[in-house]
């Protein structure tokens, strides 16, 4: 095992972490606002990948897919929210969560109907198709791009939440929704906006992941669990929690497979069980 090998694993872990971060940040903020978890979050991730695949075929441009798919998915999410989830407000959050479970089943079938059962090839843009030499190590350029994209998203989201009036409003509503509304915050509208924004980010992650994992209907069902683990381990509603959770899950999973191949896949759950037992509120909960 050489230094280059470990460096490669490190970059792999970082790349998976960044993907998880883009996926989980919307979910955790929505959770912090309304105690609502969207079980169909992974479905929007898969939908993003499929819509991106179609946009790539139509326009021939990866970048059009990268920008277009999140917009299309956000519009679909907004529609679903308005016709379904918003109308179930009085039934309680649990009912809304169960409705999103229904969406998981519906979503998989709809995607199978439109795009078929088989995994679709999704190639990285030509500019990022090759490999890069880095400290004597050869690493795929596309994966470096994923890491960079995740870092950019992280910085932009941090600026949004910490440095803008909208961000202060979101933090206040996550801290105490009732008090925020008593000051005039429209918490329901904020929640709607964050729901759509979170789904757009999930779709972005879907497009970004597509050249690495290819595109298939079950991809959303598979990614949901690690995403939820990130949210629980990191703590609900906070950006710091999403960052910490993503890095922990990404690194534990990647290095778990390398160091403990016989337990591969299980270590992440051990991490979750440990968190639930020792720190059930997660590492950095928004509401301490």
């Amino acid at each position, binding site marked *: 095992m050489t230094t280059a090998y470990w460096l490669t694993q490190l970059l792999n872990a970082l790349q998976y972490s960044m993907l998880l971060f883009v996926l989980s940040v919307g979910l955790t903020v929505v959770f912090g606002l309304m105690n*609502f978890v969207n079980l169909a979050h992974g479905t929007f991730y898969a939908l993003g990948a499929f819509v991106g695949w179609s946009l790539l075929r139509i326009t021939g441009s990866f970048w059009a897919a990268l920008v277009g798919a999140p917009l299309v998915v956000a519009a679909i999410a907004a529609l679903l929210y308005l016709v379904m989830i918003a109308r179930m407000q009085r039934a*309680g959050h*649990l009912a809304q969560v169960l*409705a999103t*479970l229904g*969406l998981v089943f519906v979503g*998989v079938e709809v995607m199978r109907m439109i795009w078929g059962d088989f995994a679709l090839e999704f190639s990285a843009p030509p500019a990022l198709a090759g490999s890069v030499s880095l400290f004597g190590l050869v690493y795929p350029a596309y994966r470096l791009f994923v890491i960079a994209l995740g870092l950019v998203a992280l910085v932009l989201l941090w600026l949004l939440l910490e440095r803008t009036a909208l961000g202060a409003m979101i933090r206040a509503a996550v801290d105490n929704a009732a008090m925020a509304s008593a000051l005039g915050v429209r918490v329901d509208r904020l929640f709607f906006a964050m729901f759509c924004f979170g789904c757009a980010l999930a779709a972005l992650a879907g497009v970004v992941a597509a050249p690495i994992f290819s595109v298939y209907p079950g991809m959303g069902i598979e990614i949901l669990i690690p995403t*939820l683990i990130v949210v629980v381990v990191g703590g609900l509603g906070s950006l710091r929690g999403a960052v910490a959770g993503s890095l922990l899950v990404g690194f534990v999973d990647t290095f778990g497979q390398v160091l403990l191949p016989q337990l591969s896949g299980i270590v992440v759950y051990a991490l979750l069980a440990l968190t639930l037992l020792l720190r059930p509120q997660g590492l950095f909960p928004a509401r301490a």
Partner: protein
Amino acid sequence: MFRLFDPLRTTVALALLIAGLWWARTGDYFGREILAEMAVFAIAAMSLDLLAGFPRLVSMGHGLFVGIGAYAYTVATVLAGWPPAVAFPLAVAAGAGAGLLVGLATVRARDIFYIMATLAFGQMGYVWVVRSGELGGDDGLAGAPRPDLSALGLDLSDSATFATLLVSVAALVYLLLGRLLASGFGRTLLAIGQNERRVRALGIAPGPYKVAATTLSGAVAGLAGVLAAMHSMYVSPELFHWTWSGEALIMTILGGIGSLVGPALGAAAVVWLKYAVSAWTEHWGLFLGLFLILAVWTGGQGLYGYLERLRRWSATVRDARGREHAGGDRAHQAVRGPHRHRPGVAPGDAG
């Protein structure tokens, strides 16, 4: 409060039992296979209702218990070569043990945290089974035997006998869980689901009740797993997958959460619909998802909830007619307070 011998509940339970027994005698081979599957799902859904319908522990990882029961039975009989008479109680105990552990680990989790925690524990089982070589990984394990009950004059390789046995076991589970839920233990579980803080204020620690309920639920789900293994003589890691747990939850909600007989009805209805729909489309999941959304949308009371509403409505009509005959009394007014009883899926709304 849960009453086991409520007229409507008893009518539905008896109707299901009689229909099942009659179908086991008169149906064809394929029909009996479906019937056995219905009975297995009915037992799993009733054990889930013990958690989701009463203390409102809406588990999304119930497949873990079912899977552990099924695998424990298969491993003990096929791999270890033990007789079914030993493997059977062992597998049920394994389900109970898993229930105990999950109950202890999730005792502080509530609502959505509980959903996520159970979801993750179930999925942990899935990954573990899929990755393990000894358990057959993705392919599952074949060869789980049906016990030899020839001493009792029963030949379980006969599909009619086997289906009859499974329907009878489901009926026994119903009676057992029903008795339990009608007792003081059941009342406490229901009170925890309605208002955990008030239960605490009364000086009762909800934790041990929740853990006990989860253990028992795990045992019954483990039993369902054993029966599933015997039924198809094959076990697959799909039992552990979170979408399987989601399906069990959908059956429970569609049938009527918190009514015990409703989930059995829901299991029978969903299994029947699955075969009916699959005959002309491969997109059965689409219907399952839409059914769930529809059920939650319309108040989450499920099929049993509709039957209850029908009963109330017919009682109102009868009552109004009686009054008319008695001599022009005012029309009957339904009692509607600001907080009438609504056994839906929303947390803490039951009055």
